[in-house]
C-alpha cells in the first residue's frame, strides 16, 4: 500500500526588487514605483518532484543547504501550497519540523506538555494519562513544576522530543531533529525511533548526517537545486551525499 504519493511538485517564490508590504507602499507603487514591481526574480525552489513512500517504509531526504528539503517537507505537511502538483497521503501526518514548537518559557513543564501536545494533535485525555511517561522519558520528573525559562536548552529539547514522539500517528515527518541532548539521550531517542518504525509507522526524514540515513532509511532521495538527482537505498544515498560534498570541496580548492 502506498502511504504517500508526491506528484510533479513545483514551488517557487517571487523575490521582488522592491518589497511592498504596506497600504502606503501599494498606493505609492500605483503612481511611481510601478516599474519596480516587474523587477525581481523567481526563486525556483522545487522543480518536478516525484516520489512515493510505501506504508511502513522509512524514506530519507538528503541534500545540501538550500536544495529544497524543508520546503518539500512543508508542502507535504500542508503548511505551504505547491504551485503545481499534488500530494496524496493515505494517513494522518505528524510533522516534527522543529522541536518545541509553540512552547511557552513562562510556564512549567506540565503546562508545556499540554500546550505542545494539543498543538501536535493529542487530546487532553491522552496527555493526562501520558504526562508522567513523557516526563520520565525526558528524565525531568523532579523538574516538572519548574518554569521552562529555567531549563537548559538540552533539557528543554529533551522535553520537546518526548512530547513529539508521543504524538506520532500515521506518517511521521522529521526535519533534522536528532541532534539533541547528550549521547545517552540520543541513543534513547534512536531506540524510541526504532520502536516507532517497528510499530509500522511510515517515516519521512531529512538529515545531514549520512550515518542516520544509512542506519534508519529503507530508501532515500538526494536533492540538488530543487530536483531529485538520485534515488536509492539509504546507504547508497548517504554515500552519494558524501561524494557530492567532497566533489564540491575539491572544486573550491582547485
Amino acid at each position, binding site marked *: 500500500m502506498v502511504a504517500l504519493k508526491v506528484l510533479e511538485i513545483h514551488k517557487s*517564490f517571487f523575490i521582488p526588487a522592491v518589497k511592498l508590504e504596506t497600504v502606503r507602499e501599494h498606493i505609492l507603487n500605483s503612481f511611481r514605483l510601478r516599474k519596480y514591481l516587474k523587477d525581481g526574480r523567481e526563486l525556483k525552489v522545487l522543480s518536478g518532484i516525484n516520489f512515493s513512500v510505501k506504508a511502513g517504509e522509512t524514506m530519507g531526504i538528503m541534500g545540501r543547504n538550500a536544495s529544497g528539503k524543508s520546503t518539500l517537507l512543508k508542502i507535504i505537511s500542508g503548511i505551504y501550497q505547491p504551485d503545481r502538483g499534488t500530494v496524496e497521503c493515505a494517513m494522518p501526518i505528524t510533522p516534527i519540523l522543529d522541536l518545541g514548537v*509553540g512552547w511557552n518559557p*513562562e510556564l512549567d513543564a506540565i503546562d508545556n506538555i499540554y*500546550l505542545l501536545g494539543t498543538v501536535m494533535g493529542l487530546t487532553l485525555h491522552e496527555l493526562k494519562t501520558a504526562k508522567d511517561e513523557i516526563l520520565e522519558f525526558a528524565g525531568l520528573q523532579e523538574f516538572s513544576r519548574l518554569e521552562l525559562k529555567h531549563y537548559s536548552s538540552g533539557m528543554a529539547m529533551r522535553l520537546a522530543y518526548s512530547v513529539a514522539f508521543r504524538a506520532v500517528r500515521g506518517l511521521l515527518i522529521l526535519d533534522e531533529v536528532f541532534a539533541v541532548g547528550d549521547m545517552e539521550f540520543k541513543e534513547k531517542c534512536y531506540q524510541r525511533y526504532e520502536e516507532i518504525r517497528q510499530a509500522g509507522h511510515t517515516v519521512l526524514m531529512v538529515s545531514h548526517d549520512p550515518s542516520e540515513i544509512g542506519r534508519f532509511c529503507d530508501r532515500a532521495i538526494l536533492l540538488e537545486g530543487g530536483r531529485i538527482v538520485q534515488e536509492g537505498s539509504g546507504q547508497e544515498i548517504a554515500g552519494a551525499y558524501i561524494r557530492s560534498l567532497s566533489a564540491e570541496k575539491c572544486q573550491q580548492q582547485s
Partner: protein
Amino acid sequence: MPGLIWTLIRTDFKTRYHGTLGGYLWALVKPLTMFAVLYTVFSVIFSMDTYYALNLIIGLFLYDFFSESTKTGLMSLHAKTFLLTKTKFPSWVVVLTSVSSALITVVIFSIAVCAYISIFRRHLSFLEISCFGLYVFLFLVIIIGISLAGSVLFLRYRDINQIWELLMQAGFFFTPIVYPLDIVPHKFHFFMYAWLPTAVIQFSRSVLVKGEIPTITAHLMLLGAAAAVLFAGASLYCRLAPRSLERL
C-alpha cells in the same frame, strides 16, 4: 480541537497573570474597578442622571471590547508565526482564541452591570438578560469575522493595524457613547446603525436600562449583519490564508 482551543485560551490567561501579586484575581478586579470608578465619577461626583451614567458605562465597555479584541485579532496570526510555520495547525483557531481575554473581561463586566441594575435599579427579567447575552454573542461573531479578515490582510499590508487603530478612534466618536443618539437628526440614524457597534450598544442599553426589547425586525437585521460579517471574513480568510501564511 476543543482541547486545543481550551489549552490556547488557558495558556494565554495563565501567561497574562503569571507572577503577578493578585494572580487570576486581576481578571476579575480590572472590569469591576473600572465599573466602580466610572460609575462614581459620572453618577456621584458629577451628579449626572443615573441613566446617563449607566448608558455611558455600557457604551464604553462594549466599545472597548470591540476595539481591543479586533486589534488583538488583527495581529493574531503574526503573533503566532513560530507555531504556524512549523506545524500543520488549523490557523483559524489562533484567531478565534485571540479574543478570549477581552471576552472574559466583558463577561465579568456584564455580570456586574446586570447585578447592579437588578439590586439597585429595577428587576431584570430573564428575557432581558437573555437578549443582552445574545447581543454580546452577536458582537463576538462580528469581532471574529473582522479578525479573520484583518489577520490575513495584515500579513500582506503591514500597516493595516495602524489604519484600524485610527478607525477605532474615529469610530468611538461616531458611535453614540458619550452623547445620546437622540441628538443626531433622525435621517442619519440609518448610517449610525450601519456601524454595527452602534446597534449592539443601543440594543444593550435598551434592554438593560430602559427595559424595552427592540423589535423582531431589528433583531433579525442585527443577526443578518453579524452573519454577513462572519461569512465575509471567513471567505476572505479561506481564500487568502493558505498563501498568506507563506509571508510569515
